[in-house]
């Protein structure tokens, strides 16, 4: 029997919400890693029982956790509790050190700080974990300060793909309000050498050689806060989404503006259309309809909550420009939550399910592609990320 597992990262721990294919009754497991910030957790598409977790803390730094049994038990790769470490030093699963080696690495340069001065690159945390589409032991990590790391041993050790950080435009990258984070990693299902990433605030980048070299793909983005609003880099891209059947089409929620590209990011055009505000964080695509797109408009960059006290998802069935509000089952009065950039996901059951989590700790789901909504759980800590596993 089919089922759905919703992986919820919150400010104070991780939760797993489970249901059968009907998606009416939900079991809540957790908190796991209670008290820690769980920026992201995501399962391997090859082996759904393998789940990677980014566990982080301002006090204790970064930890990577992994489950090999669908979230029943967890381990720190390379140094599990209670197991003897055979070789010293053990595999450093939480060691994210920028690659400055002469062979493959790049010198550790500086990036732009909030006040325009240059600031050294400093690792802070893992924002996003993206498991490989082909190998359950290969996983990518997007980190703050912005860089991309790769593990090929199940998260036991990490190596930076330094061609991105060393692209040469680094001095013009700058942190957004949440830090200078690489928050989006998209793997092209038809081309293992092609990958997209996005950074706040640098923009979107693409590699066509498996991560060795990268090019900025920001043509068409306009960011009035920048001295040159159409500059090659510096844009505050909040999230990017792709439908696996049409990997050349990308949808982007920028700081302001909802954008679309039909040529793998080479050119972008605005598709905000009739949205009440085009500021927001999340964006996602229906599992079976490549032109059906979801966003959650947020009032403004100064007021990070939904407009008019109403929590509304907006859906376009035309690939942008024409949007309809989806509000059945969602609070339409006195609601002032935010929905962060990685906090929306879809399942791939016949009738596509859509899920999102709020800064107020609610996780909402729709089993009918957004027509109606219901809370899966209401009172978790603030939600940082949502991922969905469709279990066949």
């Amino acid at each position, binding site marked *: 029997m089919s089922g759905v597992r919703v992986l919820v990262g919150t400010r104070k721990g991780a939760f797993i919400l489970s249901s059968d294919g009907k998606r009416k009754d939900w079991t809540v497991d957790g908190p796991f890693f*209670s*008290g*820690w910030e769980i920026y992201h957790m995501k399962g391997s598409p090859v082996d759904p029982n393998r789940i990677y977790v980014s566990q982080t*803390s*301002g*006090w*204790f*730094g*970064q*930890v990577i956790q992994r489950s090999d049994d669908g979230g029943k038990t967890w381990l*720190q790769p*390379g*140094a*599990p*509790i*209670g197991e003897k*470490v055979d070789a*010293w*030093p*053990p595999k*450093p699963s*939480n*060691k994210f*050190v920028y690659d400055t080696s002469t062979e493959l690495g790049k010198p550790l340069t500086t990036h732009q700080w909030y006040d325009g001065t240059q600031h050294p690159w400093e690792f802070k945390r893992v924002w996003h974990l993206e498991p490989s589409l082909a190998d359950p032991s290969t996983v990518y990590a997007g980190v703050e300060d912005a860089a991309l790391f790769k593990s090929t041993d199940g998260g036991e050790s990490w190596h930076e793909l330094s061609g991105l950080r060393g692209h040469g435009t680094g001095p013009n990258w700058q942190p957004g309000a949440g830090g200078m984070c690489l928050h989006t990693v998209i793997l092209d299902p038809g081309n293992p050498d092609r990958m997209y990433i996005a950074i706040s605030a640098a923009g979107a980048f693409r590699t066509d050689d498996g991560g060795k070299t990268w090019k900025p793909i920001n043509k068409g983005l306009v960011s009035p806060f920048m001295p040159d609003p159409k500059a090659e880099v510096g844009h505050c891209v909040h999230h990017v989404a792709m439908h696996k059947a049409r990997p050349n089409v990308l949808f982007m929620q920028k700081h302001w503006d909802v954008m679309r590209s039909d040529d793998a990011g080479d050119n972008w055009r605005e598709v905000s259309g009739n949205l009440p505000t085009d500021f927001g964080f999340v964006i996602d695509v229906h599992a079976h309809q490549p032109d059906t797109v979801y966003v959650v408009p947020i009032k403004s960059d100064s007021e990070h909550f939904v407009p008019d006290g109403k929590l509304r998802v907006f859906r376009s069935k035309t690939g942008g420009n024409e949007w309809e509000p989806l509000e059945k089952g969602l609070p339409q009065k006195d609601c002032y939550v935010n929905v962060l950039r990685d906090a929306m996901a879809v399942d791939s059951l016949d009738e596509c399910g859509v899920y999102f989590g709020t800064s107020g700790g609610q996780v909402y789901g729709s089993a009918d592609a957004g027509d109606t909504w219901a809370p899966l759980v209401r009172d978790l800590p603030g939600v940082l990320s949502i991922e969905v596993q469709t279990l066949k």
Partner: protein
Amino acid sequence: MSGAAQGDERAGRAAIRVVLPYHLRTLAGVGTEVSVQVDAPFTLARVLDALEARYPMLRGTIREYETGKRRPFLRFFACEEDLSNEGMDVLLPEAVVAGREPLLVIGAIAGG
């Protein structure tokens, strides 16, 4: 510093008691206090080396990987003395070496 063992002439090995903050206890799967065997000289660095050898999941959570420095929001106390800014080669107080007092690893209070 006052109270610290003088010099590294004390040969031998000691069982050093270490009290960890809650989140590092859960990470390592241990109780409030652990004990690690440390060879002289009994410096803070040697205790942390032994702690990480015994509980490798703690690597990178107390000291930064690249620099070996104390993470900014952690502090070290022993015998009511603040060792946080004494450097990693500071010798631990005699009472800690003798096992009468623990070394305290404490999360600084900031945020929630």
